[in-house]
């Protein structure tokens, strides 16, 4: 048995012993009709979801299946891309807990710690984030600086043994449930310093002076938070990277976030498409050539969503480097098309609940897609990145790189 085959059967054994297999074929009318959680990031039971995710993650970690690509010294498995793909493929067949609530810590904060953290930070935080012990949140955006991070106003001032932070953050996903926040703050008072005056901190979310207020979204749930920082003390050893070097640390996180977006989005997309196909068949809409045409378009976008990241690795280097922006634009466009198709198929039944299985559930999808065009950098930011970095077109007067 090759190493890869051995790995596959280890994964199958681990998951098979713990979780039910998903049915091979989805059926309309079977099981929970919610599209949330299973196929869409916006749950009504975040606390329960998160606890299940942490328990699952702990078991994965103990089995060496949590951080497949990570260095062994920090609890990773030191495996390659083939194994990661194999795991992703297998795990999709099992009804495992949704680990969305852990992704910020693992996909956004951990890469920054790995790249810029001290030995102590790495040893303490990387295993904790990947075992589900600690939940992370990002504290970048501010009310006055959505996509324009260089204009942040949260201030950190030197004090004995550390810093005192004042300011307000916003759009922090899951901050109300998080233990550790990746906090970008201004440590140089000179406004002209812009990016050079920023420093990254690893903030304990239970610190005195931290107030978290979940922001209710248009879907009715509250996933994003405002975070108020009122004279919060942060010790010196919580600085991540260099003082004044926060910009570089932030970019590691932002790039990882964009990279991660593609994989996750692609997996959610096919579940929505499958459900829509079944719904269309159930209500006889798939006889309509327009519906058929647009379902086929959805299938095409599903296929491309699957192969685009790998294809971009073979693109010219400038395009490959901006690949995450390209994938995000592709995916948000695909999501919008699918949501509009659902509206056209369901008509009045999408906007008012007839009680029929799996119909009004689409309203949450339609309302939720608007967040994806903004979170993680707006469409406009992504297009700027592509135009400037991939195509080498002139930069804006004052441009910038990331989002959220």
């Amino acid at each position, binding site marked *: 048995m090759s190493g890869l085959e051995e790995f596959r059967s280890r994964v199958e054994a681990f998951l098979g012993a713990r979780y039910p297999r998903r049915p091979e074929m989805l059926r309309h009318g079977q099981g929970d009709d919610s599209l949330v959680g299973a196929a869409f990031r916006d749950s009504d039971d975040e606390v329960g979801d998160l606890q299940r995710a942490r328990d699952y993650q702990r078991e994965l970690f103990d089995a060496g299946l949590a951080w497949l690509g990570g260095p062994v010294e920090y609890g990773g498995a030191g495996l390659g891309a083939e194994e990661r793909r194999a795991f992703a493929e297998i795990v999709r067949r099992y009804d495992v807990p949704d680990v969305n609530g852990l992704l910020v810590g693992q996909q956004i904060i951990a890469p920054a710690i790995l790249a810029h953290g001290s030995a102590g930070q790495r040893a303490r935080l990387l295993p904790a984030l990947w075992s589900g012990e600690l939940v992370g949140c990002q504290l970048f955006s501010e009310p*006055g600086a959505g996509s324009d991070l260089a204009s942040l106003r949260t201030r950190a001032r030197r004090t004995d043994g550390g810093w005192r932070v004042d300011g307000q953050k916003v759009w922090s996903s899951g901050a109300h449930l998080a233990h550790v926040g990746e906090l970008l703050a201004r440590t140089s008072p000179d406004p002209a310093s812009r990016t050079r005056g920023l420093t990254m901190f690893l903030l304990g979310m239970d610190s005195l002076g931290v107030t978290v207020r979940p922001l209710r979204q248009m879907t009715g749930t509250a996933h994003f938070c405002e975070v108020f920082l009122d004279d919060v003390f942060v010790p010196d050893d919580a600085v991540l990277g260099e003082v004044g070097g926060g910009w570089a640390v932030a970019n590691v996180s932002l790039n990882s976030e964009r990279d991660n977006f593609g994989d996750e989005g692609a997996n959610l997309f096919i579940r929505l498409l499958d459900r829509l196909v079944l719904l269309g068949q159930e209500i006889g809409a798939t006889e309509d050539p327009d519906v058929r045409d647009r379902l086929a378009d959805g299938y095409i976008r599903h296929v491309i969503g699957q192969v685009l990241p790998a294809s971009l690795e073979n693109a010219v280097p400038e395009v490959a480097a901006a690949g995450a922006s390209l994938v995000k634009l592709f995916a948000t466009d695909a999501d919008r098309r699918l949501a509009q198709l659902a509206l056209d198929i369901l008509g*009045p*039944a999408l906007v*008012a609940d007839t009680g029929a299985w799996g119909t009004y559930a689409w309203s949450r999808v339609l*309302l939720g897609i*608007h967040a994806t065009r*903004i979170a993680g950098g707006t469409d406009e930011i992504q*297009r700027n990145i592509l135009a400037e970095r991939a195509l080498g077109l002139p930069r804006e007067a004052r441009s910038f790189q990331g989002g959220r």
Partner: protein
Amino acid sequence: MTIVAPTEEQQALRGMLRSFFAERWPEEALRTAAGSAHGHDAQLWKAMAEDLGLHGLAVPEDLGGGGFTYPDLLVVFEEMGRALVAGPFFASIAMASTLLLALPDRDAQERLLPGIAAGERIVTVAAVETPTSWDATRVAVDATGTGGARTITGEKLFVLDAEVADVLLVVVRTEHGTGVAEVDTAAPGVRVEPMATVDTTRRQARIVFESSPARLLAPDHDATPAVRRMCDLAGVALAAEQVGGAHRVLEMATAYAKTREQFGRPIGGFQAIKHLLADQLVSIESARAALGYAATATVTGTGLPVAASVAQTLCSEVFSAAAETNIHVHGGIGFTWEHQAHLYYKRAVSSEVLLGRPRDHRARIAAHLLASPETA
């Protein structure tokens, strides 16, 4: 093809309504109504009827109305769409009142219209039975019995504001084809089941009838033409609401783009945002032109079905796109509950499928076009 310029009276009406809603329908009132059990503000309703006489504006004077034209009434819908007024005005006026006026039943008109016009009686129309398509004439519910006295059993979906309605006009099957039956919401065997709705400023309900007593209106006639006329005229009223809403969200987005700074300048200075908003303006002015065309057709009567579908298609798509753009231009704040942007968006997508999807209306237009191509 003609389009009639707004009269001075209409301009005055518009100005008056804009001040009225600015004062009497602040955001708190909207939020309160949208979050309430029935989505209705009885005080505003009373002021609209008693102080302004809006409910009966296009009802003939001898039926207790103001005797104005339908285009005059469209100004009201446009301003209400702009202000996102919640409640049963659309149901009671654009639908029920219009249906009554289209039916050859003077008794029913005299019985019901003065109350509607005075805002004292809320009436809505129960027509649709198919879950995924809004079609008011494809009905199966029978009105058993003879003459005016009937009994009905069956279900209706997507009935607007039924919870606050006093009377239902139920589209039924009869021996003549289609009929319209008057049923009291308080009558025996009538069960109003509220549906959860995306747009909480306009509620919908399923209504179950179990041997409910009903009075068939114009019992010797096929009501199909009247129901169709109601759909057309209500469609134009909906288009007016949509144009009003679309203008409002463009204004919100434009105002925000002028003040919100990113990268050291207002985001409205970035060409991407400028062109996005310019494209919305093109769409919205196109929609307003379609509304003007349909408004003219409500008076001349020629080509109303096609004109109504032209307006419905364009205004539906334009309002949804403009409301989405408004969310997008506002960035993160745009999809919070606290911001108004989502309320307009929810109204927009709900209206888009209310009296038929854009695609359904284009199918109607195609049938007309292919029957008799317009020659130059």
